[in-house]
């Protein structure tokens, strides 16, 4: 346990906008827990953290969504691709710090792909897409991941971010200790769920850039 308490004691962000409603172009996403409230006792100080649910871009506005898509195992389970959750978490932290609206998601088995049989044929199933309205960032994801198919599709977030089926946390076989040679454990399966559309990525989020903050929460996806 590190010096988390000091950075948390004063972090009381109260909700100012009406949850679930419009505020200009900003839409507050409805999610399982639109308000996170946690109370913890550290160093004999009662800490109350209230974080507003992450705001997204307007899901009803029609625009271009860019995606990189590949086999689910490659995207979510490959040992060599564990930098992928790292950059997603880093970006989430950055969006929080700069108060940017969420414009990227992990979408397993996207329904829009059904209308693109030629592309779907190329992708081993089940598959996972990273979707965003940020074309430049999508190009970066292609550069980083390489073995992914890059494309774009027009429509609203409400239509395009739908999945035929999610990827369960236990979808991949457990790590065989005899074959696992890394000097650390794999990121907890299911780390991707917080990036699903509709999930609240403020859950478990530590509003601090201090790496000495509480272990495990923001940084491991555990």
């Amino acid at each position: 346990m590190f010096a988390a308490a000091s950075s948390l004691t004063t972090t009381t962000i109260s909700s100012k906008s009406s949850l679930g409603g419009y505020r200009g172009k900003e839409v507050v996403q409805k999610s399982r827990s639109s308000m996170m409230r946690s109370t913890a006792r550290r160093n004999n100080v009662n800490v109350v953290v209230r974080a507003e649910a992450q705001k997204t871009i307007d899901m009803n506005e029609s625009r271009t969504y860019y995606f990189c898509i590949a086999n689910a195992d490659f995207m979510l389970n490959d040992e060599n691709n564990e930098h992928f959750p790292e950059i997603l978490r880093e970006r989430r932290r950055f969006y929080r710090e700069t108060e940017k609206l969420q414009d990227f998601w992990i979408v397993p088995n996207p329904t829009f792909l059904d209308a693109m049989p030629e592309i779907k044929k190329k992708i081993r199933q089940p598959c996972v897409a990273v979707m965003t309205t940020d074309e430049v960032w999508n190009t970066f994801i292609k550069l980083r991941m390489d073995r992914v198919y890059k494309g774009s599709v027009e429509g609203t977030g409400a239509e395009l971010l739908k999945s035929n089926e999610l990827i369960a946390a236990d979808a991949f076989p457990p790590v065989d200790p005899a074959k696992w040679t890394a000097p650390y454990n794999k990121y907890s399966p299911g780390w991707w769920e917080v990036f699903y559309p509709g999930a609240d990525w403020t859950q478990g989020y530590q509003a601090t850039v201090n790496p000495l903050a509480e272990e495990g929460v923001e940084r491991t996806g555990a």
Partner: protein
Amino acid sequence: MASSVLSMSLSASLAGKSKVFSSKTNKSISSNRKVSKITTTVRATGTMVDDKTGIKKMRDGIKEAADENLLTPRFYTTDFDEMEQLFSTEINPNLDESEIFSILNEFRDDFNQKHFVRNDEFKAAADGIQGEQRRIFIEFLERSCTAEFSGFLLYKELGRRLKKTAPTVAEIFTLMSRDEARHAGFLNKAMSDFNLALDLGFLTKNRQYTFFKPKFIMYATYLSEKIGYWRYISIYRHLQANPDDQLYPIFKYFENWCQDENRHGDFFSAILKARPEFLNDTEAKLWSRFFCLSVYVTMYLNDHSRSEFYESLGMDTTKFNMHVIHQTNKTTATIFPQVIDTYNPAFKAGLDGMLAANQKMAAISKSDDSDIAKALAKAPLLATFAAELVKLMIMKPVDSGSVDTNLEDHHMDVNDPAFMY
């Protein structure tokens, strides 16, 4: 660049085309250099030795830089005119800059702007590290700092020189030098916790610079950034799971830190993809393997010559190194046209053969024999070392590359699990 930029040193001495030269500034101050050396020698025999570790100091609180050898981190320079030719948008109007621009955007976001902030834990932790452990800690910090600073100097100069002709690439180099300066500064502050900072201005003027042609800079820096990522993330994640081994708080910063390294590597991927002539012929394949091998071998020898350091963090040096090598090699396979088959048992056997020869040579160097006797004793070991290296170089390689540039070359099948979409 992370600590493993030092890996390039071996390449520098083995790549036939590279040469070591002193820049003009070096020449103009070479006389000063002699003077300072003499002064240091005099001082070293006097009081300017750190009382806790016996490390030589240039002056109070400033460590004398370690001697340069085959395996120490180096400073690099390149052919700036050729770099300009390669990435000038005037000369190459059809240069595909979309991926280059995408990585520039990541650098502009500057995810780690507020990351490198120290706290009170550092000094206290440094005071708690004593004896032999203190010496190897300082050595680790110095090597890391020198490597990061080396990246800073090279990138900064490239940013300056390419500004007019290749503005996108130049801005990226400048932003990468920003990251390297942060990293080097953070490490140097850490050294001052041990009362032994480096005089980076002095280093800039006095160290020898190794010349690499642009394409070698691209291969070598790509690898050193990516291996740097894998080293730092592995140490970070190991210590996260084993907080009792966290001797000094700097490692807690490694997760965000190494994302910078990883992005720097992505940039070299992007420029290599923009100039596919560096990726698609036999010569490119040969150099790809050569740089992979020299970077892996250098890390293996370096880390094993200071195993105590990794052991003090609760790590097994060999396991840690092999993990980093396998992962770096897989990552590199997404861009280089050929990589090493690191899972071939002959690869590990070759590394261990070189390690044994290197350790024997180090023991001879330390002995009291005459220089001639030492050279004679080392000759057969050097031959063994070279033979092992050649064996690995001609070992059956793995064809690889980006799906964007090498898919057709290698008749890669997207249904092949090794090549999945």
